[in-house]
């Protein structure tokens, strides 16, 4: 790796181009299971983000000491202890949220996105880029989780941001937005597992549409600049 690391590239890849949930389709199990409300999604997203930053940083720090043969057990050990520490911290500071997320906190160990980043990126890069990569990958995963959670909560219950006090303390109790009012017929389907699959499917489809549009626009711009540059050359040769 060269010295000049392209952080813009890392950011773009983590949030969009190589998004853990929408492009790599990693960590779908927790994504689908706990995204029934925004607060659950945010809780698991934050936990995953913290684990990714810690595991990427530590893996990057020890990348020269660990031989190829034992690198995977070593990485798994690092990830597992990062997860357990996060779990203990959540239990200590956001106990009720910990009860809701339950088994999905320890299951972050099995989220392939975490081991994937450790092996594919952190083990080949310096500390800072590795940490930034972990942060951006985690952020990308968390944003997708929140998006899915928001759609499902809105359709399934008619309101948004319920129970936010589980993370942000008592002042957040009033953050709940009753978007559709009491007469809204709750689409229970959105809260059930099939609803989660369909929402994620639509998100992936939406991303592909946007990517296609962006590509078309980039092609058009390229075509234009080629034309323009020709004219410049012509006038230049005349003068």
């Amino acid at each position: 790796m060269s010295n000049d690391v392209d952080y813009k590239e890392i950011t773009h890849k983590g949030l969009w181009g190589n998004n853990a949930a929408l492009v790599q389709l990693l960590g779908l199990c927790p994504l689908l299971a706990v995204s029934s409300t925004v607060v659950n999604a945010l809780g698991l997203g934050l936990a995953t983000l913290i684990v990714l930053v810690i595991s990427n940083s530590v893996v990057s720090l020890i990348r020269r000491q660990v031989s190829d043969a034992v690198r995977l057990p070593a990485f798994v050990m690092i990830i597992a202890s990062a997860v357990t520490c996060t779990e203990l911290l959540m239990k200590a500071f956001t106990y009720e949220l910990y009860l809701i997320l339950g088994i999905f906190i320890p299951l972050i160990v099995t989220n392939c996105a975490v081991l994937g980043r450790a092996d594919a990126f952190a083990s080949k890069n310096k500390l800072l880029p590795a940490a930034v990569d972990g942060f951006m990958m985690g952020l990308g995963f968390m944003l997708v989780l929140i998006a899915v959670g928001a759609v499902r909560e809105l359709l399934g219950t008619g309101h948004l941001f319920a129970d936010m006090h589980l993370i942000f303390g008592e002042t957040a109790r009033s953050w709940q937005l009753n978007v559709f009012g009491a007469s809204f017929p709750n689409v229970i389907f959105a809260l059930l597992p099939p609803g989660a699959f369909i929402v994620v499917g639509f998100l992936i489809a939406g991303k592909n549409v946007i990517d296609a549009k962006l590509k078309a626009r980039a092609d058009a711009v390229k075509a234009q600049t080629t034309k323009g540059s020709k004219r410049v050359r012509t006038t230049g040769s005349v003068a």
Partner: protein
Amino acid sequence: MLGQSISKNSLLLAAFALATAGTLALTNLGTKDRIAAAERAAQQRALFEIIPLPSHDNDLLNDVIPVPQSAQELLNVGSEASIYRARRNGEITALIVPARAPDGYSGDIDMIVGVNRDGSVAGVRIIRHKETPGLGDKIDLKKHQWILSFDGKSLQVPFVEEWKVKKDGGVFDQFAGATITPRAVVGQVKRVLEFVAANQQALFNDPLLTPTEQSSTKQSSTKQSSDTGKDHE
């Protein structure tokens, strides 16, 4: 050559295991007290909802007795479950009994049932369930007020035969699209009341404790409560 690399790698992994175990031990030490406090607070919140502070003056969390062996099958709880006792001026005014309905729509429904001395329900709260969101999960007070409809009811009012959901000819509402869940909860609350009624004397007539006895009971019950704390994890 091979042996050398094996021993080198295993030493490396052992060092890793030690380092990660050390980190975990430190984190555990740092958060242990806070976690215990949070667990206690969560437990207490549920109990206080059923029996609010003004109506009892004892340390509810530490005044516990184990569920009698004979009743464990009826209540469908393990030997680690305990009954909490609310006292006023030393006299037991209400009990909080844990129970588990085995016949929910998707698995067990864990609940606690508060029973007053006169046999009426002080309150019911669902602790854990896996019922369908939007249908069966209305038994949770966060979603619906239904669970409050038990308050004040006893085996005399309404009659025992009416401890059913309306669809089965009883007095309790079912939900649109979900009958199995409320049926399971009603049935289990009824069983708790029957258990308390059958053991009225033994459960409520705890001899009034003198101050010295009280402090010694407190010590032993503190130990019990730390045991239940573990079960809660």
